[in-house]
């Protein structure tokens, strides 16, 4: 059967419905929990095996040794593909993903974040 303007009923009923569009920057969008967003690093737990660096598909992680059993991580959010493979590779669970996803920046340097190791308290002893 052929009917012109088949969608008309649905289309007119849309007039009385709320728009499906979300006015994004004004209405914040909730991501489901366990959404793979920005990666955070806990220097306390890191043992410096550097397996995360090896497995990262984008080469976004750089782990540096800054002292005896002290490591700091440098992340390039511009390179990261948010696959969260590093969080699975890390057997000490020093890397975790958060739900944060609004990371855009006009400055490339701002995308590079460093997780510093805790200041050395053994030196003060």
């Amino acid at each position, binding site marked *: 059967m052929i009917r012109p*303007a088949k969608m008309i009923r649905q*289309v007119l009923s*849309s007039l009385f419905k709320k*728009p*499906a*569009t979300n006015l994004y920057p004004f209405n914040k969008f909730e991501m489901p929990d366990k959404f793979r967003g920005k990666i955070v690093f806990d220097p306390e737990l890191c043992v410096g095996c550097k397996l995360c660096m090896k497995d990262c598909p984008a080469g976004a992680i750089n782990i540096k040794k800054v002292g005896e059993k002290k490591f700091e991580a440098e992340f390039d959010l511009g390179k990261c593909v948010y696959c969260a493979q590093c969080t699975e590779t890390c057997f000490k669970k020093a890397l975790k993903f958060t739900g944060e996803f609004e990371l855009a920046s006009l400055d490339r340097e701002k995308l590079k974040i460093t997780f510093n190791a805790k200041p050395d308290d053994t030196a003060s002893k």
Partner: protein
Amino acid sequence: MIGSLLSIFIFPGFLFLMVFGLSAEFIDRKLYARLQNRVGPPWFQPVADLIKLFSKEDIIPEEANPAMFKAMPILALTATITSFFYIPTWRNEALYHFNGDLIIVLYLLTLPTLSYFLGGWYSTSLFSKIGAVRTLTQLFAYEVPLLMSILAPALLADTWSLTEMAVFYSAHPWYWLFNILGFFVALITLLGKLEKVPFDIPEAETEIVAGTFTEYSGRLLGLFRLSMDIELIVGASLLAAVYMPFGLAISPIFAFILFLIKVLSIVAMVSVLRTVFARLRIDQMVNFCWRYLAPFSFLQILIILALKGFLVR
């Protein structure tokens, strides 16, 4: 002298038509969006678009004929504005009228289409040329049904003047109901004239980019956009004047508000129609116009002739 200048530039001339045209564009876009379950643009969007276009540089292709390229948007705009002066708005009498002004309005409404054709043709881009040829092909398809369906109410009123038609229908308030078939034919052909879905073939963006307007930019494109908005208004007012000629004689303010309601409801009908169809192909469009629309408008004329025989006089 000052009175006519005022009426040409302020009301019901250029300024009024610009404001009304832009608000009609807003209503059309907002309604289109809401029908598609979207939010749609804010109220100032058409003005903002126009200001943006007017503040930009005009780029004229090297191959194009500069004189024709520049003249066409102005021709389109002036033709549409002029045609509005013959349409009754707040009383039975239009600003200017003489016997035969109906034909003049239709002629002036053909000029923008012709200027789209010439503008596209002289910009020499391939997409523009295809769009231009499609514009003209489409013109030949919808012009005859449009003319015939507008002929019917004029035949009933026995005049070629929109003003005299308004006078006639004020004297016989319910006679406009006889023209209802013609109204629907004219509404569909209006979609073709305004190049809206399903007849937006001349500017089908997925096929030929923007058709005629591919090479236009800046102020010239702004003028074309404005003339299309005003064409929407003038087309809708023509339909309102011809098919809904009631309530004009009561009081000027009431009649004017009624006129606005009539025009905006026709604009709304155009938006609804352009929501529910897919774009036709040019051969299908020509076929549809000649096979379905032309016979229906002919039927309308026959109805009117029969009525005139034993009902009216």
